[in-house]
């Protein structure tokens, strides 16, 4: 610890004091060093949802949006991680591919049944990102074991529904679609309002992110309803509606 000269400016003295405090904390290991676990890549647009990034060993519980789960896994899969989806028989594979999930490194276990805990355990051993559907046959003890295993092995669990002790809890509170009208248009733009809760976080934070972005669409989802957005869009742009198809 260095002695700060009395004539140093306020800023210098503050930073010196902070450095001293940090040194003391590290010596006594009061900070959570576990939180310095390496991160998996995460799409930039999702940074507000998980400010700490997608840390290995973490459990992220998502309520209300399968798209958000897929988006969280997408960038890591694109970067070379293996992904498995357990107990999600209805997951939209095209949506997953559209959000960056590499289908060659994706394995589906749609119906784990009574072996859910064993299957999740096996997948955590071999995969970086494991997506779990709702209503898996797992007790709280199973969940704790799985969490410990994930922390040890450095996998990320992205869970639909609630999960006791999750590191981050994302709950979708509102969805706003753009592009759809009264019989015309199509779904083009989506904004999610997400409530973020976390173990290491105090108050609940609300964040709005755009999960589906159509660059050609110039409307904006607004409070008055979706048709307003379409009216704006209809004037400036032209897209053809899908024609009669025969194969």
């Amino acid at each position, binding site marked *: 610890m260095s002695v700060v000269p009395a004539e140093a400016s306020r800023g210098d003295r503050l930073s010196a004091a902070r450095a001293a405090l940090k040194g003391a904390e590290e010596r006594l290991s009061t900070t959570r060093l576990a939180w310095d676990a390496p991160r998996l890549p995460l799409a930039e647009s999702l940074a507000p949802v998980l400010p700490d990034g997608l840390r290995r060993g973490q459990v992220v519980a998502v309520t209300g949006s399968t798209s958000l789960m897929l988006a969280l896994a997408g960038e890591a899969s694109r970067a070379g991680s293996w992904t498995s989806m357990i107990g999600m028989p*209805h997951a939209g*594979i*095209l949506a997953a591919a559209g959000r960056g999930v590499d289908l060659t490194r994706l394995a589906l276990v749609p119906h784990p049944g009574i072996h859910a805990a064993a299957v999740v355990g096996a997948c955590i051993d071999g995969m970086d990102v494991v997506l779990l559907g709702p209503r898996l046959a797992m007790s709280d003890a199973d969940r704790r074991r799985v969490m410990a295993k994930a922390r040890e092995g450095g996998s990320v669990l992205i869970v639909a529904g609630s999960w006791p002790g999750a590191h981050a809890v994302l709950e979708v509170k509102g969805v706003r679609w753009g592009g759809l009208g009264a*019989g015309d248009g*199509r779904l083009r733009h989506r904004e999610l309002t997400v409530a973020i809760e976390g173990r290491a976080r105090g108050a609940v934070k609300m964040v709005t992110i755009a999960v589906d972005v159509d660059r050609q669409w110039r409307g904006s989802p607004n409070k008055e309803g979706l048709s307003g957005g379409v009216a704006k869009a209809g004037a400036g742009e032209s897209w053809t509606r899908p024609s009669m198809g025969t194969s």
Partner: protein
Amino acid sequence: MVATVRRAVLWVPDWPVVAAMAAAGVGVDAPAAVLHGRGMVAVSAAARAAGVRRGMRKRHAQRACPELTILPHDEGRDAREFEAVAAAAERVVSGVEISRPGLLMIPANGAARFHGSEDALAEALVTGVADDAAYESCVGVADGLLAAIAAARASVLVPAGASRDFLAPYGVGTLALAAMERLQRVAVEDLVSVLVRLGLGTLGDFTALPLSDVIARFGAVGAWAHRIARGEDVAPPVLRRSEDDIAVEYVFEEPAQRVEQFALVAAFIAEQLDAALLASGVRCGRVRITARTEKGDVLERVWRTDVGVRAGAFAKHMADRVRWQLEGWLSGTATGPEPAPLVSLALTAEDVVLLGSEQAYLWGGASGSDAKAHRSLERVQGLLGVEGVLSVREQGGRSPRDRVQALPWGQEGQTPRSLGHPWPGRIPEPAPATVFATAEPLAVLDAGGRPVVVDRRLGISAPPTWVRRQADPRDGLARAVHRHPSSGHVGGSEGPVWGAARPVEAWAGPWPVSERWWAEDGSRRAYVQIALREGEGELGLAVLAAFTAGGWVLEAIYD
């Protein structure tokens, strides 16, 4: 420069039609022709005698010879049938090159020495093919490719060094005989037409030109033609060496149906295959498992084997797959013919490569994390059975469900539908994140509570205003409402239990898709995207609904 090789050529005249007649069971002396596109590509001798020519239209050919049998064109069949001829020729000489179905090339030096003379070789070949494969053939011997083919067509033996003089009187059109591929033939035919218009009618005239001038005027094709017209070679013959498949088979003494029996046999033949692969010093990339039932059905699957990383585990790895496949099939979960006792079980190695020459991935070998993931998935497969773990890939299609192909992990299936086709009427992006494996029923109602209908002319009866999904089966209230007399029926009905009606915020459609209307599995549907209003703790949901067969179904949810 390639040294000119003395070659014997075995030529079966009119091969496509001869093969087609053999495959169709038409007598050898019947008039027949093979039709491809708009014209005849090959004509049998009897048909030719009746006046049918190559390139004739079907109508003209039938006018010339009303009893003509017209057979379809099939290159696969031509090649397959020719295998018998090649095998017969291989009993006479070792090593033949199949230049194209109908034409075999044999290096003549050694073979002629073995049989005593070129005459004896030719005779042995013709007799061998006639006896073993029952086809008439012509044999000719000469130096160089083109001369040998011309000699075979004339059934003559051209003495060594006389090829150039032998070819000189032939027309330049003969050059096309030496072109083995279609594109090459087109280029050669272009060249021939130019030569004819230049007044160079014979190969002798053509070869009299200096080579440098030919190259300057005609480029690579000209150089190739000049060289073979002089009776020289452009490439040494590529000899095929026939190798038997590496396969093992177990025939049950009594037809077996119990899984325990299969487990033992699976382990046994997997070990045998491993030993057979090791004995020939090769390794395989895929294994085909074939099981035959008492009823004559065949159950066949192809499995990938990434044995590169753990060669020692091959036998166990394959035994597991055989067992899983048979278990899944016997329990009726997997698709396939009706379960019946098995009479035999066979494993065939495919994608065989020599040990040490496997193709690794582009970026080095299978990485540690890949191997780890594969191992964990195998563990899950061991737990849940082979169909428990799926791999998916994208394929062409219109609805979100059709655009995904799922297969048991590690198994190879039929090729997916092409992504490159346009697929008009495809549901636009973004793709829904929840796609139901089988569509759920849905009630789409207008402002008055009547069901919305899409008519044959794709008019929608009224704008959708309310949507009711099926209620959660655990929702007692919805069930009670369903049973209540005010719901319009007393004592409940067979129909679905509807949840609460939710107001529609916005919608788009209908987008009609009529698929495979000519087939049994055809479907006509009109898709509608509907966004539901938020409220009462419910999220503003967007759904993809379809009107088909008089009712609405919920295809997918954009959640």
